[in-house]
């Protein structure tokens, strides 16, 4: 006879849903998420206004305007997810709420998964905010559908990667300040190759660096499709590192993060 006894996987699934719901409430009803959303929309408004009012905007530059807006949206949207995830465990620890969370009848995997989902909701909101701007800039050149879908695919991969990195740092950081500082430093390090002169980005070493870095690879892929009108499959190899990074770091954040989540961390750690 089968009884309706919750099996461990069901309990785990409900656990992440409960943690996720609670985290989403804190983030969005607490006002932090909406405030970040307003700031994000202001940034996109400034970029869209400056590009759209450029009188010399020709066809190619219009595509570049869509590309710029999309790339900023992906980068900043992923940054928001990273910051939210970097606060996930170290923030709870610092606010002395991690103990009650660990004592709750929820698996640690449920905690890390729920918190990752909440962090990724910031990227989802950023993406929704981006759509009208991309529509406005790309409507004359038949680029809207492609750009929106591209932003969703590449942005989600990068947001999953960065949020997972933020979560891992947060699990191992001794304080919230350390977690946020290390996350921001890492983000800057990941962005550094985009500032290299174009001559340094050429050759096998330059291309290897761009391909290995998930952020530069993802943004390169976006640029090739939006500006150069390449097909989706033409530069698909550039999506390998964002895809691998998202999968590997999501696994690490969810499972390794859950395994090593502790109430206290020594300052030296």
């Amino acid at each position, binding site marked *: 006879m089968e009884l309706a006894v919750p099996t461990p996987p069901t309990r785990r699934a409900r656990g992440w849903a409960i943690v996720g719901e609670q985290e989403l409430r804190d983030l969005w009803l607490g006002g932090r998420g909406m405030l970040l959303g307003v700031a994000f929309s202001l940034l996109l408004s400034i970029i*869209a206004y400056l590009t759209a009012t450029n009188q010399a905007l020709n066809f190619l530059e219009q595509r570049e305007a869509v590309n710029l807006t999309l790339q900023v949206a992906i980068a900043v949207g992923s940054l928001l997810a990273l910051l939210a995830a970097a606060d996930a465990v170290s923030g709870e620890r610092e606010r002395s709420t991690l103990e009650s969370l660990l004592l709750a009848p929820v698996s640690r995997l449920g905690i890390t998964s729920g918190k990752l989902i909440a962090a990724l909701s910031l990227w989802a909101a950023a993406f929704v905010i981006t759509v009208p701007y991309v529509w406005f800039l790309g409507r*004359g050149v038949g680029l809207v559908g492609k750009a929106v879908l591209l932003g969703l695919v590449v942005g989600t991969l990068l947001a999953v990667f960065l949020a997972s990195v933020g979560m891992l740092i947060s699990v191992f950081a001794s304080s919230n300040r350390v977690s946020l500082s290390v996350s921001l430093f890492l983000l800057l390090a990941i962005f550094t190759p985009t500032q290299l002169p174009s001559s340094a980005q050429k050759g096998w070493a330059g291309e290897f660096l761009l391909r290995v870095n998930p952020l530069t690879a993802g943004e390169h892929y976006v640029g090739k499709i939006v500006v150069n009108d390449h097909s989706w499959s033409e530069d698909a190899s550039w999506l390998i590192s964002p895809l691998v990074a998202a999968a590997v770091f999501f696994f690490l954040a969810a499972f390794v993060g859950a395994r090593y989540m502790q109430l206290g961390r020594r300052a030296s750690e």
Partner: protein
Amino acid sequence: MFAATLVAACAALASSGLAVAAQPSGVSVALEPLRIHTELGRNVLVHATFRNNGPAATGSLIAHLNVLSLRSGVEVDPEDWSTHRTRYLGTLPTGGSQTITWKVHAINTGKIALYVAVIPQAGLSSRPATGRTVQLVVAGRRTLNSGGILPLALGIPALLGLMSGGIQVALRRR
């Protein structure tokens, strides 16, 4: 007759010790259409047919599409106009032909020239065979009406701000 004269002239030059640039022998390039009118941002197709009119099969051939402006002062970056401008045709048997289609993106307004050159893959000293020039006339097109940007740029942050304020007020009233 002309070909025989040309071959004889080349042989004479070669025997005199001068380097002679050979052309992919007997390969003709035919482009169509030769005149295209389009608008900024549109795509047009250019077909090139390569035919081997020579007595023997060709070696492997490479075809390359070139793009340039007929007016000075107009900057043209061929990469933006057409991706995959270089195509590897392989060999053409005697009397055989192959047609390649290039998708060309009209990036600038004005009069643009397109032409295709063919060279043998193994013959760096060869002179390329070219077809006739395609003239592309690109008319302007207004693609972005910036008039609506201000309501959008102000409206979205304002809407989000109002939503945020509304949620906070509703939560406090509870």
